[in-house]
Every structure is written in C-alpha cells, then in structure tokens.
C-alpha cells in the first residue's frame, strides 16, 4: 500500500525540499523513539509467544514465564499437538471452513457485483437498495439466531458460513471497480460475440486482480477468525470446533486440552511445557494471516480506499 502512496508523493522518494526546515536532533530522536516503541509494542508480544512455543519447560522456568531470549529451542510442542488430538483437527476444520467459505463468498459476491455494475440495467437500483439497506438495518442477534436454528443450522457447518457469507460492503467495492472497467473493452468483447458471463470471466476479472486479491483476503480472514458463530451454533460439540474457538477454550478459559496432562509427552525433564503447547496454538492461529498478508498488502491502497472513502 505504501508503494501507491509513495508514487503520489514524489518528494518523499527523492530528498528533502529546500524550503523545509532542517530537523533538530531532539525532534529526530523523539520521532525515532516513538516509532521504535510502536514497532516494539506490536512485535514484542509476538516474539515472546513464538519463542515460548519453541521452548522447553526448563527454559520457561528459568525465564520465569514467557521466554524472551531463545535458549534450547525444540519442536516438541508442535509435534505433540499435530500428531493427533483436538488442535490438529481444529486446524483442519478452520482451513476447510476458510477455503470453502471464501470460495463461496467470492463466487456470489463477484457475480452480484458484476450483475449490478452495468448502469441502466433493468432493476439494478432496486437490487442495490435491497443490498444497502442491510448495512444499516438489522434484525439483531436474537432473530438471526432464531432464523438459523429454525432452518436447522444448530451444530451444522453451514451455520458458520452462510449467514455471514455476504458482505455488502465488499460487494460495493467490487462493483465500483467493475463499473470502472473501460467500456471499450467490454464493447469490443461484445462485438466478438461474448455474453455477460464470458465478459466477466475473460475481461473484467483479469483487469481487476488487485481488488479481487484484497476482497479475498477480507473474506478469508473473516472465516479464519470466526468465533462468535461457533459460540452461538456449536457451543458443545468440541469435535467440530475451529481453531479460534479451541484457542478460546484452552488458553483464555484455561480448560485442559484433552491429552495434555496424561498423554505422556516424556519425563519431567524433557516434557512439553503446557505453556508452550498453548503458545503453539496461538502461533498456529496467527501464522496463516501473517503468511497471506504480504501477498495482498501491496493492493491495499486501491482496494481499501475505494471502499472506505468513495463508498
């Protein structure tokens, strides 16, 4: 995203303009400290958690809690967790929900956004109103819950996907991009005999990769982070829990992980520390986000701003 902004600020890329005052040493120092502090506040906790998840009980005890300086790193926590047990299953559930949900959301959102993106098409104003109204008026929690459970959504995976599959905001962002695809391109395709489906697939989608990437990330993060839906619709069936809910149960509420105490991870000296197990769950929940982030980040300026600022 900063790339896009840098190009609009030419002077930043080159040097300080002559008319601007030279910075004072104190000013520079304060600025440096502030920025360093901010970065440390965000990366510090992540560092502690990651290092602790790789640590042995011995080094955790020595450090008195979380480990800051790595010492004697081990993969035991991850091995113990992924071998079998609830965490591995939750990881799989989370991935499956994220992939299926994102694919579904993107499919219907792209179709709807394109369907509404041609000005003067029949009824697009009415349909747009139907969409936008839901951004401001909602039935609230209880009626939604009654609808989903009334449709038999209790303990069903679709209850985690369908009710929140559509974000009208995302559709509006996509729509404003599709609306701005050059109409020469579309007319040319039409001359060549392409129908709407063909135009969407071969002309519009390839020219809007950036926004597609950003919206995909938004949907995927939403599904990956889904927590409250689980609490609502499958609070008791621990077999079906995705990773976020497992994290909540085992780390926030401190429920013992099945198999954590008595599965025999070895003797006391080499035992996998409960804390590093917990921290390993934390790491597993944050890793996919951190991996996906850099790929999409450069598109943010375009994707986010059209939505956030122009509506």
């Amino acid at each position, binding site marked *: 995203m*900063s*790339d896009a*902004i*840098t190009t609009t600020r*030419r002077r*930043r890329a080159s040097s300080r303009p002559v*008319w*601007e*005052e030279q910075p004072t040493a104190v000013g520079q120092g304060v600025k440096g400290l*502030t*920025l360093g502090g*901010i*970065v440390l506040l*965000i*990366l510090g*906790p*992540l560092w502690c*958690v990651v290092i602790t998840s790789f640590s042995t009980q011995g080094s955790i005890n020595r450090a*008195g*809690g*979380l480990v800051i300086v790595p010492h004697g790193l081990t993969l035991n926590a991850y091995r113990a967790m992924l071998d079998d047990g609830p965490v591995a299953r939750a990881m799989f559930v989370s991935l499956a929900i994220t992939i299926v949900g994102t694919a579904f959301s993107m499919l*219907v959102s792209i*179709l709807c956004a394109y*369907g509404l993106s041609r000005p003067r*098409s*029949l009824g*697009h104003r009415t*349909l747009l109103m*139907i969409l936008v109204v*839901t951004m401001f008026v909602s*039935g*609230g929690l*209880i*009626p939604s*819950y*009654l*609808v989903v459970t*009334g449709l038999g959504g209790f303990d069903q995976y679709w209850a985690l996907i*369908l*009710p*929140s599959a559509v974000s*009208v905001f995302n*559709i509006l962002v996509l729509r404003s991009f599709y609306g701005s695809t*050059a*109409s*020469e391109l579309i007319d040319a395709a*039409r001359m060549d005999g392409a129908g709407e489906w063909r135009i969407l697939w071969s002309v519009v989608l390839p020219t809007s990769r950036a926004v597609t990437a950003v919206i995909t990330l938004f949907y995927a993060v939403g599904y990956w*982070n889904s*927590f409250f839906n689980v609490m609502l619709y499958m609070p008791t069936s621990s077999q079906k829990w995705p990773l976020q809910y497992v994290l*909540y149960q085992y780390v926030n509420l401190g429920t013992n992980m099945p198999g954590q105490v008595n599965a025999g991870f070895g003797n006391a000296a080499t035992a996998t520390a409960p804390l590093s197990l917990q921290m390993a769950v934390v790491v597993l*929940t*944050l890793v996919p986000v951190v991996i996906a*982030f*850099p790929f999409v980040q450069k598109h943010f300026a*375009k994707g986010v*701003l*059209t939505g*956030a600022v*122009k*509506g």
Partner: protein
Amino acid sequence: MAAVTTNGADVPGREQAAPVDVPEKHRTPDASESRPGKLSWRIRLRRDRSLLLMTVPVVVLLLVFNYLPLFGTITAFEYYDPIVGVFNSQWIGLDNFNQLFGDPLFWESLRNTLSLAGVQLVLFFPVPIMLALLLNSVLSPRLRSFVQSVTLVPHFFSWVLVITLFQQMIGGAGLLNQFLRQHAMTPWNIMTDPSVFKLLVTSQVIWKDAGWGIIVFLAALAAIDENLYEAAAMDGAGRWRRMWHITMPGLRGVIVLMLVLRLGNILNVGFEQLLIQRYAVGHDASEVLDTFSYYYGIGTNNYGYGAAAGIFKSVISLALIYGANKLAHFFGEDGLYRK
C-alpha cells in the same frame, strides 16, 4: 454513498469511452446511452437476464439471513416459545419492553456501552490521525512502509488472539507480573481489574486497529498539494503553522467522515472482545447492550426479552447515524450520504 475523492485509484473515465457501433440487441447498457426509458422493460429484461441471474444468490442469502430476521423482531412483542414458533407464541404486547426498562441490569449495560464508546471516542479516535501525521513526516520510504506494515498486521488477528496476547503480557500469569514478583513488587492483574477495564479495552482496540485507521488518513495526506506547503514556507510559515493551516484543512473531510461512521457505530462497542473477557472481569464492568441481549436472550432462553433489547439498540443506532449525518451536513461536509 459518501463522496470524498482521493487520488487512491485512478479510474479510467467512462465518459472518455469512444462510441462503438454495436447492434442494438447486444448493446451494453452503459452511461453513454442517452435515451432513458426508451426500451421497453421486456426488451431490457431479455437483454439483462444474465445480469439479473448473477445477483440471485446474494439476494436470496440476504433475504433469508437479513430480511427474515427483520420480521423475526416481532418476537420482541411476544412470549416466544421455540416449540410453537413465531406465529403461535403468546402475544404480550410491550411487556418485554416494560420489563426491560425496569431492569437495572439493562440500564447498567446501556451505561457501560455509552461510557465505553465515550472513552474510545476520546482516546482511540485521534490515535490513527496522529500516527498518520507521524508516519507522513518520515522521509525514508522503506522505514515508513515497514512501520506501516507492522502496525497493520494486528487488524487481521482475531479478538481471541489479541486478548490472549494481552493476557500473556499483562495478565495474572503474564510477563509483567512475573517481572513484578521477581522484583518483590505487588503483582497487578490488569486483565481482571474492573476499575481499569475501559482503559484496557480501549488499549486493545488501539493495538489492534490503529494501524488500520492510518490508511485512509495517509491517503488524504498524500492528496494534499505539495505546492501549498512550498508557498506557505516561502511566505514564512513554520512547520507548525503549515500543519495547522494546510494539513488540517486537508484532513478535515476525512476526519468528519470517520467521525460520522464512528458515531453511527457507537453502540457496537466490541461485542466479541467483551464477550471473551466477560468471565474474567465480571459483568458489572463488561456488560454492554450486545452481550446483554446475548446472555439474557439466548443464555436464559428468554428470546423475546433479548430481541427487545436488540430492537432498542437498533432504533438508537439508526437515530445516531441520522443525527451524525445532520451534524456532518451542519459542518458543511458530505458525511455518509449527501444532503
């Protein structure tokens, strides 16, 4: 909706499109077509049927999961019994509301909601603006984009994860308290202390979303004309005067827009965030309208009661959105929609 233009995306103008001769029945319905209503709806229906077909899945989803619940709000006026359903449940008129307004717990949750929103408005809202100004003054593009990336990442973490990280840092068994104990000081479990809960929640919001808020302000900053700064500097305006007379007016529109969005959303103070911490800190400090509706509606199976609390919240929210827009128009800005 809103219309603050930035230079964020350069959109190829539709009006520059060269006219192309396309047979009538294949004609794209686009803005260059200057004969509104000339085609009968039957022809338009045939021409646009694939476009309409494409919108069907989303419209169906919204009808089922957004509009159906709207009708479900009538449960607020009955003693809802899941077994007999919405239509056969006992109709009790405004009893749920009467009970609600006589419930001290409800008023407590409303008070918590408003004071939390107030604290966040004062302490959180200015943070992204200040951060954006700070980042904007960093000359090195690499340093700037590094800091920006780092601050942006937490936005994509779930609340469970963010609260876990806070717990590990400043919770009872966390890093801070380990340090305090080792140095023979009194440990202080910030995570379960109701007296600082509002500040804790706000700092979690700042940690998670400040970097996200930066984006829109940075774009607005980048859109300010460089020449204004140079001209002002030539006229002898110092750093701070330039910020006051050029930067601030340049940011004004975006700040007002963000404020309007914030005000319209003010009753949605971190539902998941508070739900997760409710056990640790107790409901006195953490109950807000959303969690109230959840616990007394679903938790105790008193669905009508929870729905009534939900309706109360929706009505106030709508009024707030409307009022905030009026306020924006009063300041001469567009707000969420134009006057």
